[in-house]
C-alpha cells in the first residue's frame, strides 16, 4: 500500500525536479549554520538528519522533511533557544523560500495523477457495513469477533497503510461471511412465539424454602433471577422480546446500618436486566435496562429488547448490599443478634426477611415480535420468494446484493463468477437457499466488498465520494439517498453532510474519531487497582468517563459550537456517580446531564475529563510524561519523538521517597533527555493536581504539597491546568491545525502529505475567522479538493 503510494509520488517528483532545483539557494547554508550540528552526519537528534536532504526534492520524504523544518521555524521551536539563532531577516528569507519550494512541488504533484487509494475495511467498518447492508441488529452479533485487531497509523485504525491483510484474516472473512449469510438469509415463516411466566419460587435462581410467593434478592448483582425454561438454550429465534417483571422494594430501611451492609438505604432500589449467551460466553454479557422499584408497592416493569437466538436474561438488584451473602451471614448478622456466631456460617434463615430485599413476584418473557416478516434486510434482495425459486430469481437477488455490497454499479461481466458459483451449487445440491447463502458468502468475501477501491480519474466519482463520506461520518456504507445525491453540487453535498451528522449512524464518528484522537481507547488498558479503587468499579466510572467525553464531543458537533470548548468549556456532562467522583454537588440521577462548571471545580474542557486523566495514568499513579506528551500530540500537534532506544526510563519510585517533581528533575541531568522533556515535563507536572483517576488533590498521599508550577520552552510560566488552558487559547491556530490534521487523516484513511497542507492551512484560517465551529470544520474538509480527490 504505502509502497504503491510512494512509487507513484516518486515518479512525479522526478518530473518536477528540474523546475525546483534552483530553489536550493539559501537552504543549504541555513541548514549548515543552524541545524546540522544536531541533525547532521554526526548526531541525529529526534531521529532527524538533514545533511543528505536535497532541496531538489528528489523524493517524497525529502519534501516531508522540508515541510517539517518549515513548521518548526514557523512555530519558533527550532533552533532551541540556547543555540545560535538566525536573524529575523534570515528567517524571513528561508521561510519564504521553503514555502515557495513546497508550493511548487505541491502544484506539480496535484497536476499529475493522484494516489491509487485502496484500503480494506477495518473491523468497525466491516461490522457497520454488514449491519446496514442487511438491516441487522448487531448489538449482540459480531461476525468480526475473531478478527485480529487493526493496527493504528498516526493514531487511527482506518489508515490504509496499517490495514494489512493476512492468511489468518482471510480465514476470518470466510467464517464471518458464513455467519452473516446464516443470519441474514431468513426464508420461511415467521418464527413461533414463546410466552413463559414464572411466579414466586418458580422463578429460577431464588433461594427456596422461604415464602414461596416471592423470589428474593438480598445482595447486589450476585443473585440473578431468571426463567428456568430459557436456562439451557436461551430464546429460540432472533427477534424482539418483551420482558416483564413485578417487583417490590421490601424494607429498604431496616435494623441494619448501611455501613454494615455496604448499602445505601437512601436510594430507591433499582432492578437491572442483563443478557448473556452460553455460546458466546462472558463477552456477550451486558446490562440492557435499569428500573427504579417502589417501596412496598408492586412496580411492574416492561422492557422490549432485541435478543439473538440463544440469549438468556437475568434480573439483578443493581444497588443492593455490596459483597457476598456469606459475608452478611458471617460478619454482619452476629453484630445484631447474640444467637448468631462470629465469624462462622450462620443459617440463612436467620437473616432472610430481616434486612432490605428486592422481591420479585412474577417474571415473564414473550416474543419474538417482528415489525415485518420477512425481515427488511432479507426482502430487500430476496423479494417475494416464489414457492420454487429458480436460477433466474437467484441471479436477480445476488445482483441486487452485489450492487449494494460493492457500493457501485456492477457490470454483468463482473457479476458472472459470483452467479456461476451459486448456480453450480444450486444444480449440484438442489437446495435453493443453501445456494443463495453460498452466493452471499462469495460476495461478502470479494475484494470488491472488503476493499474500498477508488479507481479511474483523479477526481472522485460520485459513488466514490459518497463512499468516502459515509466511511468518514458513519464508518459504514453509504445509504441509498447518499448514493443517489448529486454530490458534485456544493449545496447538495453540504446538506448531505448535515443529514449524516444528524443520523444515529454518526455515533460511529464520535466513537471512532474522538475515541482515537483523544486516546480514549487506552482507557481500561491500565485499569486502577480494584482493591484501592472500589468506587471506580462499583459505579462503572470507566464507562461514565468515556461517556462524558463522547457527550462533550457530540454537543460541540451538534451545535456547531467552537472547537475551543474542547479546551475551556464551562460545562460538562455528568451522572451522579461521576459527579460524586469529581466532588461536584447537585447531580442526583444516573442519567447524564449538562452541568455548569465553576472555576474551583477545575474541570472545564478535555483537560479536566476523568477519561483522559485516567488514560494517561498507569492505574496506580499519574504519569506526567504521558500527560505532557498527550497534550503535545493531541492538542498542540507537536508530538515529541520517542525516547532514544538506549535510554533507561526513570524507575518508578515505589518507596515514595521522592515527589514526582524530584523524579522528573533527573531528566535535566541528561541533555539527550532534556531536549524533549523540557517541552513535556512542565505540561505534565502542571496536571499533577489530578490524581491517577482524575480526582482533584492538593497533596500527595505522603502529604507533601503538590507544586504544579513550571515554565514552557518559550518562557511562558505554567501553574496548574488553568494556565495550560490559557497557553492553548493563545495558540488557537496551532490547536485548530492539530484537530484539522487529525480529521483529515481520519477522513482520508491515509497519512497527511505535504501536498495536503495548502487545503489544511486554508481551512484553519477560514474556520478561525468563522467562529471555530466543529461542523463547519467538517463541512470545509468535505468540500476541499484534498477530500474529493485521490
Amino acid at each position, binding site marked *: 500500500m504505502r509502497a504503491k503510494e510512494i512509487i507513484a509520488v516518486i515518479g512525479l517528483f522526478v518530473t518536477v525536479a528540474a523546475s525546483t532545483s534552483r530553489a536550493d539557494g539559501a537552504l543549504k547554508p541555513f541548514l549548515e549554520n543552524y541545524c546540522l550540528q544536531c541533525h547532521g552526519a554526526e548526531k541525529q537528534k529526534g531521529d532527524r538528519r538533514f545533511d543528505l536532504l536535497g532541496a531538489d526534492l528528489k523524493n517524497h520524504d525529502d519534501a516531508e522533511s522540508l515541510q517539517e523544518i518549515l513548521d518548526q521555524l514557523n512555530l519558533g521551536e527550532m533552533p532551541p533557544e540556547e543555540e545560535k539563532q538566525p536573524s529575523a531577516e534570515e528567517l524571513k528569507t528561508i521561510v519564504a523560500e521553503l514555502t515557495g519550494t513546497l508550493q511548487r512541488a505541491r502544484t506539480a504533484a496535484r497536476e499529475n495523477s493522484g494516489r491509487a487509494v485502496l484500503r480494506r475495511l477495518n473491523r468497525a467498518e466491516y461490522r457497520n457495513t454488514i449491519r446496514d447492508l442487511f438491516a441487522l441488529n448487531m448489538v449482540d452479533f459480531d461476525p468480526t469477533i475473531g478478527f485480529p485487531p487493526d493496527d493504528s497509523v498516526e493514531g487511527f485504525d482506518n489508515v490504509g497503510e496499517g490495514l494489512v491483510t493476512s492468511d489468518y484474516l482471510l480465514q476470518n472473512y470466510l467464517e464471518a461471511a458464513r455467519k452473516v449469510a446464516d443470519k441474514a438469509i431468513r426464508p420461511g415463516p415467521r418464527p413461533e412465539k414463546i410466552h413463559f411466566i414464572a411466579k414466586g419460587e418458580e422463578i429460577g435462581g431464588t433461594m427456596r*424454602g422461604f*415464602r414461596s410467593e416471592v423470589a428474593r434478592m438480598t445482595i447486589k448483582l450476585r443473585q440473578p433471577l431468571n426463567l428456568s425454561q430459557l436456562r439451557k438454550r436461551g430464546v429460540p429465534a432472533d427477534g424482539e422480546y418483551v420482558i416483564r417483571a413485578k417487583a417490590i422494594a*421490601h424494607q429498604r430501611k431496616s*435494623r441494619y446500618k448501611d455501613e454494615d451492609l455496604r448499602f445505601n438505604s437512601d436510594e430507591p432500589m433499582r432492578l437491572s436486566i442483563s443478557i448473556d449467551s452460553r455460546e458466546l460466553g462472558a463477552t456477550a454479557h451486558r446490562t440492557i435496562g435499569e428500573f427504579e422499584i417502589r417501596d412496598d408497592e408492586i412496580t411492574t416493569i416492561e422492557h422490549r429488547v432485541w435478543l439473538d437466538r440463544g440469549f438468556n436474561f437475568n434480573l439483578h438488584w443493581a444497588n443492593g448490599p455490596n459483597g457476598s451473602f456469606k459475608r452478611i451471614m*458471617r460478619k454482619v448478622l452476629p453484630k*445484631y*443478634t447474640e*444467637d*448468631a*456466631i462470629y465469624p*462462622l*456460617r*450462620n*443459617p440463612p*434463615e*436467620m*437473616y*432472610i*426477611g*430481616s434486612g432490605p430485599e428486592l422481591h420479585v413476584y412474577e417474571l415473564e418473557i414473550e416474543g419474538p415480535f417482528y415489525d415485518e416478516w420477512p425481515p427488511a434486510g432479507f426482502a430487500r434482495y430476496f423479494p417475494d420468494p416464489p414457492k420454487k425459486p429458480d436460477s433466474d430469481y437467484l441471479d436477480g437477488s445476488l445482483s441486487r446484493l452485489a450492487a449494494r455490497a460493492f457500493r457501485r454499479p456492477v457490470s454483468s461481466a463482473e457479476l458472472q463468477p459470483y452467479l456461476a458459483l451459486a448456480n453450480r451449487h444450486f444444480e449440484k445440491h438442489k437446495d435453493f437457499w443453501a445456494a443463495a447463502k453460498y452466493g452471499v458468502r462469495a460476495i461478502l468475501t470479494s475484494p470488491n466488498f472488503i476493499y474500498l477501491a477508488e479507481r479511474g480519474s483523479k477526481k472522485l466519482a460520485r459513488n466514490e465520494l459518497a463512499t468516502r463520506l459515509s466511511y468518514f461520518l458513519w464508518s459504514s456504507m453509504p445509504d441509498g439517498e447518499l448514493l443517489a445525491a448529486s454530490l458534485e453540487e456544493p449545496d447538495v453535498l453540504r446538506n448531505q453532510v448535515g443529514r449524516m451528522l444528524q443520523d444515529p449512524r454518526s455515533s460511529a464518528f464520535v466513537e471512532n474519531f474522538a475515541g482515537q484522537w483523544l486516546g480514549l481507547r487506552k482507557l481500561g488498558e491500565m485499569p486502577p487497582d480494584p482493591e484501592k479503587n472500589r468506587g471506580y468499579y462499583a459505579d462503572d466510572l470507566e464507562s461514565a468517563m468515556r461517556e462524558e467525553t463522547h457527550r462533550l464531543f457530540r454537543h460541540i458537533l451538534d451545535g456547531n459550537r467552537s472547537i475551543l470548548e474542547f479546551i475551556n468549556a464551562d460545562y460538562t456532562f455528568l451522572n451522579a456517580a461521576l459527579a460524586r467522583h469529581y466532588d461536584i454537588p447537585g447531580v442526583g440521577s444516573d442519567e447524564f446531564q449538562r452541568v455548569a462548571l465553576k472555576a474551583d471545580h477545575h474541570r472545564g474542557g478535555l483537560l479536566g475529563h476523568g477519561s483522559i486523566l485516567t488514560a494517561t495514568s498507569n492505574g496506580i499513579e499519574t504519569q506526567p510524561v504521558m500527560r505532557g506528551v498527550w497534550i503535545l500530540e493531541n492538542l498542540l500537534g507537536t508530538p515529541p519523538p520517542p525516547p532514544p532506544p538506549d535510554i533507561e526510563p526513570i524507575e518508578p519510585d515505589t518507596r515514595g521517597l521522592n515527589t514526582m517533581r524530584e523524579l522528573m528533575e533527573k531528566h535535566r541531568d541528561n541533555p539527550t533527555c532534556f531536549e524533549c522533556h523540557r517541552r513535556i515535563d512542565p505540561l505534565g507536572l502542571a496536571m499533577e493536581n489530578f490524581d491517577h483517576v482524575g480526582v482533584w488533590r492538593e497533596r500527595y498521599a505522603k502529604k507533601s504539597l503538590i507544586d504544579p508550577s513550571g515554565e514552557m520552552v518559550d518562557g511562558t510560566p505554567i501553574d496548574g491546568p488553568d494556565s495550560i488552558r490559557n497557553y492553548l487559547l493563545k495558540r488557537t491556530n496551532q490547536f485548530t491545525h492539530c484537530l484539522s490534521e487529525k480529521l483529515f487523516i481520519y477522513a482520508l484513511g491515509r497519512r497527511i502529505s505535504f501536498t495536503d497542507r495548502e487545503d489544511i492551512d486554508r481551512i484553519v484560517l477560514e474556520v478561525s475567522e468563522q467562529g471555530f465551529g466543529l461542523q463547519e470544520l467538517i463541512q470545509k474538509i468535505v468540500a476541499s479538493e484534498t477530500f474529493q480527490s485521490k
Partner: protein
Amino acid sequence: MRIPLIIFIFLASFHSPAFAGDDERPNLVLILARDLTRGHLECYGGKHSSPNIDRLAKEGVRYETAWRMPDENLSKKTLFSGRYPSHHEKAPTLSVLLEQSGYQSGGMNTDLEKSLSFLAQAQGTQPFFMIHFVGSEGAKVDHQVGKLRSAIEKNEFKANTLVMLTSEGGSGKAKTDFEVRVPLIVRAPFLVGQGRVSKDLVDFTDILPTFLSLAKIAKVDALKSDGKSIVPSLTGSDDPFEKRNWICSESEGFRMVRDWQHILDTEGNFHDLRSDPRQAKEVSPLDKQAPGRRTRLQMMLDRFL
C-alpha cells in the same frame, strides 16, 4: 421468688374494667392429643385418612417443624410454664394467668361431651379458653376435632376463636428429631389466611407466650418464658428476629437442639436433617457449612448450663 410478684403486679393491671363487658380478645382452644404422630395425618404425608384435621390445616397454618418435649409429662409441664424442664419452677401456669386476666375457663377436659357443651353455652361477651385432651388413635382424634370444629362453627364467635392442635407425645423418652417432631396446626381466622405451611421453628415453650400475647397479657418476657410467641409467624411476618432460630427438647440429663437443617444433642450426635432425616449418618467433613452450624447449636446447648 421475685417473679410471681411481678406477675401479680401486671396481672392486677389486666384484671381491669377495660376488658369487662366488651372484651374482644380471642377465644383459645387447645386440642392436645396423646402421642399423635405426623404419620397419622394425611396433611403431613401420613398414610391414614384425617379429613377433619386436614380441613383445619387448610383453614390455618400447618407447622413443619414443631417440637414437643421427650415425653408427655415434660411436654405438659413445659406447655403450662413456658419453660424448658430444667427451668421449671413454681410459678402461675398458663390457665391461671388467663383466668386472672379475665378469661372464662372451659376447663381441661378429656370428655368430648363436656367440651362440646361448654362450647355450646359459651357467650361472646367474655373470651374463654379450653383445653381438650384426646387419645392417640388417629381416627378418634380426627373425629373429635371434627366435632369441636363444628361446635365452634355454630357459634357467633367462630371467627374470633383460635384452635391449636398438637401432640404431647407418649411415655417413652424420645431422643431424636423424628420422634419429637409433632403435628402442629393453628386455625385462627382473625390472624391467618387460608392454608399456609410454615417452616418456622416452634417448640412447646412457645405456646404459653403465644396465648399470653393473644390475651394481651403484655410483658410476657418478664415471665422468663424460654419461648417466643408464634403470633408473628401466624400473621405471616417475614422477620426472623421475631421468631425462633433454634428449638429444644429436654429431659433430665439429656438435651437436643436443632435449627432449620441440623440437630445436635448433649451426647454429641450431630446430623444434617435435610439429607439424613433418620439421623443415621455422620456429617461429611467436606461440608463447609456444618462446622459453623454445629458451633452455633453447641452455643445454644451451653446456654442452659
